[in-house]
C-alpha cells in the first residue's frame, strides 16, 4: 500500500468539514492510496481487500486490467459500506481528481449510514469477508480446491435467489435446524361462545362445533403436508435448511448467501446512491473546494462521470438530475394536490418561480434540501422513480423508450411516452432485473423433488440459462429439480433429473405442486 500523502490527508479533513457543514452524516472514513493494479484487484473483489478464492474474481481482474491498458475505462474510486468506511484513491490521479473523489465518497458514506435499506447490513463487513476467506481456504485445504470451487460455482448460480425484503421482516427462523423444545404456539380450537348452561345447546350447537373442529384439523394437516408452507422466495435459505449438504458445503452456501444479502441494497439503490454522491461532489466542489486553475480538469472529470451514451442510461446522471428536480420542485412548491390538479402547462411551468429564481442555488435549510435528505433516508431506486419521475422531467431529460426490433435485428427507438418509459425503468430496477423465482414444493410428487416457479411479470426467462441453472441446483438438491416458467404465454415445466434435461407443457396430466401463486 502506498502511504497517503499528507496533502491529500489534509484535503480529506477539509472536505469532511465542508460535508459536515452541509449536514452530511457519515462514519469515519479511511482513505487509502493504490496503484491501478491494486485498484483492479480490489475492484475485482467488489471493493474488499480480502475475498474467498474463486476464479470469477480472476476473470474480472483480467477484464479490468485490459480495460485499463487500452484506456477504455478507469476506476477513479471505490468505497466500502463499512464502519469505518474505506475508500481507495488511484495514485496517478491529479489533485483535483482526488478532491472530487473524496467529496463523492463522503456522499456515499452518508448514504450508507442513513439509507434505510442499508440499515440491516453488516458494518464490519471487511472483517467478515476476511473471515469468509479464511473459512473457505480451510475447506479448500481439507477437501481440495476443485471440490470447493465446484460447490461455489453451484451456489453462485443461485446467488440472486434471495429475498431482499426479508431482512426487515423476519418471516421464519433462520438456522439450519428447526429449534426443538421451543414453545409451540397454542393450538387453535373451535370457537365457543360464552353462554349460560341452559342456552349452550342453542348458542353452540354440537354439530357446528364438531364441523369447525373438523375443518380446522383438515386445514392443519394440509398445512403440515405443504412444504414449504407458502411459496418461498429465499431459495438459498430453503436449500440451506433442507438440502442434503455436507456441513462445509452448507457453510459455503451460508457465506454466499450472507454476501448476497450484503450487496443487495447496493443493487437496490444504484441510481440514488450514485446520484446522491454526485450531487454532493458537485455541490461541494463548486461551492467550496474548486480553485480557478482546476476548473477545466474538474469539468472534464465531472462530465465524463455523468456522460450518457445512446442506449445506456447513466445512473449517476439520472440520479443527480432527479434529486435536483426534487429539490427544485419542493423549493418552488410544485407538489401536492393543488399542483397535481393543475393541468395548465404554462401555469405549471411558472409555478412558484418567484421562490427560487433559476440559477440561484438554494442550499441548506431550504424545503427542497430537506426533502432530498428525507428521500435519501427512506427510498430505494424503485420507489424513488415510482414517486418522483414526472412527465416534465422525462421531457427535460430527453428520455425515450427503445426496444428490440426483430425485423431489423436492432434496438430501435419507440417513442417518448411517459408511462412506457416509467414502466420500463421500473421493470429494469425491480428485483435487480432478475426474474422472481419461488420454491413451490420441496417434496414434489411426494418424491423429495424440488419444484421452483417463475413468477411471470412480463418477461420470460432465458431458456438456455434456465436449463443450465437447473443442473446446478440439482447438484445441491441431489434429487430431480423442476422449474415452471411461462414461455410465450405457455406454461412449461423444465426438469433435470441428474441425467437429462426435459421440458413439457404444463396441463392436467402433470401433478400440481403443493403451493400455487
Amino acid at each position, binding site marked *: 500500500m502506498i502511504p497517503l500523502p499528507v496533502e491529500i490527508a489534509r484535503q480529506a479533513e477539509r472536505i469532511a468539514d465542508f460535508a459536515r457543514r452541509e449536514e452530511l452524516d457519515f462514519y469515519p472514513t479511511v482513505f487509502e492510496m493504490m496503484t491501478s493494479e491494486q485498484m483492479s484487484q480490489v475492484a475485482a473483489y467488489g471493493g474488499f481487500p480480502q475475498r474467498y478464492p474463486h476464479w470469477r*474474481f*480472476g476473470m474480472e481482474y483480467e477484464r479490468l486490467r485490459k480495460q485499463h491498458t487500452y484506456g477504455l475505462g478507469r476506476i477513479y474510486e471505490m468505497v466500502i459500506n463499512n464502519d469505518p468506511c474505506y475508500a481507495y484513491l488511484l495514485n496517478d490521479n491529479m489533485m483535483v481528481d482526488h478532491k472530487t473523489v473524496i467529496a463523492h465518497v463522503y456522499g456515499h458514506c452518508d448514504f450508507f449510514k442513513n439509507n434505510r435499506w442499508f440499515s440491516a447490513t453488516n458494518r464490519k463487513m471487511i472483517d467478515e469477508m476476511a473471515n469468509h476467506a479464511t473459512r473457505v481456504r480451510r475447506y479448500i485445504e481439507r477437501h481440495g480446491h476443485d471440490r470447493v470451487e465446484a460447490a461455489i460455482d453451484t451456489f453462485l448460480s443461485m446467488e440472486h435467489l434471495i429475498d431482499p425484503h426479508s431482512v426487515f421482516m423476519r418471516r421464519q427462523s433462520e438456522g439450519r435446524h428447526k429449534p426443538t423444545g421451543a414453545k409451540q404456539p397454542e393450538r387453535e380450537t373451535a370457537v365457543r361462545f360464552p353462554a349460560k348452561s341452559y342456552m349452550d345447546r342453542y348458542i353452540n350447537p354440537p354439530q357446528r362445533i364438531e364441523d369447525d373442529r373438523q375443518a380446522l384439523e383438515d386445514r392443519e394437516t394440509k398445512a403440515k403436508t405443504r412444504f414449504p408452507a407458502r411459496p418461498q422466495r429465499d431459495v438459498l435459505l430453503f436449500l440451506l435448511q433442507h438440502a442434503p449438504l455436507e456441513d462445509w458445503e452448507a457453510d459455503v452456501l451460508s457465506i454466499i448467501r450472507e454476501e448476497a444479502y450484503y450487496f443487495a441494497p447496493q443493487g437496490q439503490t444504484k441510481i440514488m446512491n450514485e446520484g446522491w454522491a454526485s450531487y454532493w461532489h458537485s455541490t461541494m466542489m463548486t461551492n467550496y473546494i474548486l480553485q480557478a486553475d482546476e476548473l477545466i480538469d474538474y469539468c472534464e472529470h465531472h462530465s465524463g462521470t455523468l456522460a*450518457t451514451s445512446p442506449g*445506456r442510461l447513466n445512473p449517476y446522471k439520472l440520479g443527480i438530475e432527479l434529486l435536483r428536480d426534487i429539490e427544485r420542485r419542493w423549493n418552488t412548491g410544485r407538489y401536492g394536490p393543488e399542483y397535481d390538479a393543475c393541468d395548465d402547462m404554462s401555469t405549471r411551468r411558472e409555478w412558484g418561480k418567484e421562490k427560487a429564481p433559476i440559477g440561484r442555488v438554494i442550499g441548506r435549510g431550504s424545503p427542497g434540501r430537506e426533502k432530498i435528505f428525507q428521500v435519501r433516508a427512506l427510498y430505494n431506486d424503485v420507489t424513488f422513480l415510482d414517486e418522483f419521475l414526472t412527465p416534465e422531467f422525462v421531457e427535460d431529460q430527453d428520455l425515450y423508450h427503445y426496444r428490440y426490433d426483430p425485423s431489423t435485428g436492432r434496438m*430501435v*427507438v419507440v417513442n417518448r411516452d411517459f408511462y412506457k418509459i416509467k414502466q420500463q425503468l421500473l421493470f*429494469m430496477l425491480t428485483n435487480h432485473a*432478475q426474474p422472481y423465482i419461488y420454491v413451490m414444493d420441496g417434496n414434489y410428487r411426494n418424491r423429495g423433488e424440488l419444484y421452483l416457479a417463475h413468477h411471470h411479470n412480463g418477461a420470460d426467462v432465458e431458456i438456455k440459462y434456465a436449463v443450465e441453472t437447473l443442473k446446478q441446483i440439482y447438484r445441491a438438491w441431489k434429487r430431480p429439480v423442476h422449474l415452471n416458467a411461462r414461455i410465450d404465454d405457455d406454461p412449461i415445466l423444465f426438469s433435470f433429473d441428474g441425467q437429462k434435461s426435459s421440458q413439457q407443457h404444463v396441463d392436467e396430466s402433470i401433478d400440481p405442486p403443493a403451493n400455487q401463486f
Partner: protein
Amino acid sequence: MILQINNDHQRFRKIVKGRIRKELRKFLTRSELLGREGKKYISIPVAGIDIPHFRYGDNSDAGVGKGDAKPGDSVGNEGDVGPGGTQEGQHILEVDVSLDELAEILGEELQLPRIQPKGKHRITSERDRYSGIRQSGPESLRHFKRTFRRALRRQIMSGLYNPDAPRIIFERADKMYRSWKTILSPQSNAVIIYMMDVSGSMGDEQKELVRLEAFWIDAWLRKNYQGIESRYVVHDVRAGEVDRETFFRIREDGGTRISSAYRLAREIIDKQYAPTEWNVYLFHFSDGDNSSESDSRECCQLLREHLVPSLNMFGYCQVASAYGSGNFINVVHEHLNDVEEVITSRVNNKDDIYDSIKTFFAPGR
C-alpha cells in the same frame, strides 16, 4: 508486490485453457488466427465461461435511453446489436493467450512428444545482463537516480522536504540496486522448409488449408526450438524460393513437376543448413497430381538418397482439390514405406487438420 488476486487469476487462466483444449479441434480450423502470426499474444474469444443463473430472455430486450432520437432510429452502434439495457451481454470473453501456451495445449491434447533436438551444437551460452532493479544488493551496484527519487518522494510525502534548503537523506528503504538476469541462449537451430504446389489445380480453398496447417506446424516447432528459420518454396513445373507473404498468396497456373521443388530444397539445405548443426524439417503440400509417373519416382529417389539423410522429418500433406486427390501420395507410400522420417497425411477439409498434425508429430517419431 504479489497480489492475492494472482491465484484467482491463475485459476481463471486454467479454466480458459481447459476450454480451448476442449474445443481444440474446432479451434484449429479458425482462419482468423492467421495474420496474427508473429505476434506474441493472440486474443481468443472464449464463449460461455460464465456462471449460469436465471435471467430474462429475448422479450425483455428493451430499455430507456437519453438524447436526440426520433422513433425508428436505431440505438447504439451497429456493432452492439442485440441485448442491451437490462442484459449483461452474451459473455464472450476475449482472452489473450500466448502462442507458446497455445502450442503447449496443442502438444498436450494431441499428445505430441517433445521433440528431441539433434546436432552437437547444443551448448547453452549464459550471459548476465544488468537489466533489473531490486531493493537489496552491494553498495557498488546502487542505482543512484532511483534511490534519490525514492528518497525525494518519501520526504515530500511525509512533509520533511524543504524546497528552499533541499537536503535529501537516504534511508535504507529508499535504496535501490541494479540486479542482473542470466540469459540462456540455447544453440539448437532449426529450419522449416515449406514447399507448396501452386499448379492450376491448387485453388484458394486448398491454400487456406495449407496456411492453417502451416500455422500450427509453425507454432508447434517454434515452441520446441528457440531459434527457428522458415523458408518457403513454391513450384509448378519449376520451383522458386519466395517470401512468406507470397507463399500464401501466390496463384500460378501450369502443370506440376514435384522433383523441381525437391531439387531446390536439396540445394538450399546443402548450401546453408549443414545437417550436423541444423534440425531440418521439410514439409510439402500438394494435391498430388504430378505430371508423370517417372517424375514421381525421381522424387522418391531424391528423397531417399539426398534429402532424408539430412532431415529430421519430411512431411507430405496431400490436400484434396476440386479435381480429386492425386496419386503422388501412393507413390511415396510404395517407395518409402520403410523410411521413418517420411510421414504422409491427407487433408480433405478443415476438420482433418487436427488429425494431420497428430500424424505428423505422433509419438514414437
